[in-house]
């Protein structure tokens, strides 16, 4: 089959005005979206994350109308209940409903992950864009700052930060992002360095456009694909980091439920009630796996290097 873009390749006579087709324009975004949609597994993984995110957003409704438990409601008559009709996924040592806590925990885990990615991308993109576009001493200063940030062992920084600030979802996101933006800045700077060599940047300058316009209208759209890929692959990674911090007691503090601290809590009852470990573990595993599969699908669909 001849693709739609073949039609335009037939050059027309110099003065000729063709009868234009009504075929929709093939923007890069349309084509990438089509490629992504064609990837069944990737779409499935993305849908799973969307479902988890929707459940997390609607956690109070789930609590009120579906499970009929609050995440911190203690019921000492119902400790270590097995999964069943009363507690669908069982209860913990204080009789708290596991399903409800997983749903509320999704708020924390996914919320922190998305927020962290958003902060890392915003800061990293700004820094990388300025460094790559202006070069010279601005580049030197900003990139040495990035080198410094990336040279600090993350775990020590996390420990220090969680001592200084009592971790809540927002401070936790800021703490994790304070390390994550460096990699994004490097990525964006590299892309900008490559994109700004292309003639259309010179063409834009030749018509008198200001730097801000050049960066916002030309450089950003051209580095956006790598940002989208970085974001989709980043979510899974950050869920893991956040869970690890919670597990170590450096993250979200009990009694607030998070997937990570549910694991910590369940550790002591591993042999007695294995599902208390298995459920948050499987949830984390599934979410991270889905994020990575989705991230890879996004990369396959959006990577600019696959297409001019």
């Amino acid at each position: 089959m001849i693709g739609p873009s073949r039609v335009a390749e037939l050059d027309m006579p110099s003065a000729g005005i063709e009868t234009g087709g009504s075929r929709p324009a093939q923007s890069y975004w349309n084509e990438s979206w089509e490629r992504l949609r064609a990837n069944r597994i990737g779409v499935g993984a993305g849908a799973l994350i969307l479902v988890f995110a929707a459940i997390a957003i609607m956690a109070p409704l789930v609590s009120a109308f579906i499970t009929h438990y609050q995440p911190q409601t203690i019921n000492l008559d119902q400790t270590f209940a097995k999964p069943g009709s009363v507690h669908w996924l069982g209860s913990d040592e204080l009789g708290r409903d596991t399903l409800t806590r997983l749903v509320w925990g999704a708020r924390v885990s996914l919320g922190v992950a998305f927020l962290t990615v958003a902060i890392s991308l915003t800061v990293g993109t700004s820094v990388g864009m300025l460094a790559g576009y202006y070069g010279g001493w601005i580049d030197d200063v900003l990139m040495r700052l990035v080198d410094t940030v990336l040279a600090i062992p993350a775990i020590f920084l996390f420990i220090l930060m969680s001592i200084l600030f009592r971790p809540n979802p927002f401070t936790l996101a800021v703490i994790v992002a304070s390390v994550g933006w460096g990699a994004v800045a490097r990525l964006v700077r590299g892309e900008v360095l490559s994109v700004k060599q292309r003639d259309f940047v010179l063409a834009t300058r030749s018509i008198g456009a200001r730097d801000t316009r050049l960066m916002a209208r030309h450089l950003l759209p051209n580095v956006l694909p790598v940002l989208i890929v970085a974001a989709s692959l980043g979510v899974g990674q950050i869920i893991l980091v956040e869970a690890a911090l919670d597990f170590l007691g450096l993250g979200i503090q009990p009694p607030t439920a998070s997937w990570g601290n549910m694991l910590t809590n369940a550790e002591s009852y591993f042999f007695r009630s294995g599902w208390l470990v298995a459920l948050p573990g499987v949830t984390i595993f599934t979410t991270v796996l889905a994020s990575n599969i989705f991230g890879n699908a996004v990369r396959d669909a959006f990577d600019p290097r696959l297409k001019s």
Partner: protein
Amino acid sequence: MPETATAKHITRAWTVNDPLVTVGDLKVWFPVATGLIQRSAGYVHAVDGVDLEIKAGETLGLVGESGCGKSTLGRTIIRLVEPTGGSIKFKGEDITHVRGGKLRALRREMAMIFQDPYASLDPRQTVGDIVGEPIDVHGLAKGKQRQERIRELLRVVGMNPRYADRYPHEFSGGQRQRIGIARALAVEPQFIVCDEPISALDVSIQAQIINLLENLQSKFKLTYLFIAHDLSVVKHISNRIAVMYLGKVMEVAPAGQLYKRPRHPYTGSLLSAIPIPDPAVELGRERVLLKGDVASPVDPPSGCRFRTRCPRAKPHCAEEIPPLETFGQEHLAACFYPLD
């Protein structure tokens, strides 16, 4: 053409008979940075003392080998590259160091057409936005008027106005080049630097683009600096031709004159390298083959730049830089021992 801001800054009355662009002793040097601390280890003398005049309404062809500084010269004249020394005058006004608002006003009078029709259009923008960007940048039109102007520009370059909402990758090289030309025309410039606009195109398309450029020139009274790397291409379109070698202008002459009677040995060798599509003539003619490679622009030869490869070079050529001297009407060449 509406009156532009630059017109107000003219100190001396500029008339149509004066050169539109005057370049005096223009130098563009790029530092060669080496090592970790970026210490400067000399300069690339990309443009090294160029004097040139471009008359209003003419096409000045600029030829030379790759790396001789012709693109840099073109970009410097329209102030996309900072000059190291010398002066650039546009319509009698010194624009060598104008900045800010005056430079932006100048951008409405000069435009550029690029060599690579693939790299010179932003792949994430629609054709309409590419052609409309100069209109937006200078606030020339809004809303419906803007759309109408974009359609008109596309029509002028022989494109279907309906293509405005398509993306560059949906078009062929020739069509993309038309889009680039439409963008250049959007500000209604007087002067356009054409940086090898047809080098990247199929031969069959080259003629179309050349014809389009010529039509536009007579329609909009444009002045072109037409950069190319071989003489056969510029012969057709140029009124006068300047030959550059290693950052310097070697010869300037009316196109016909340059072909009939080149004075500089470098021009002579370039002309003898043009293939003639007739085997009998091709067999019988004498070739001037140059020895060696172009000298390094970081450390150019003393005296005449071309002497290291010149078949006519004598000791004197190493001692003094030959100035551009007059050889008949409008014919200048920089050589101590010119061809007859």
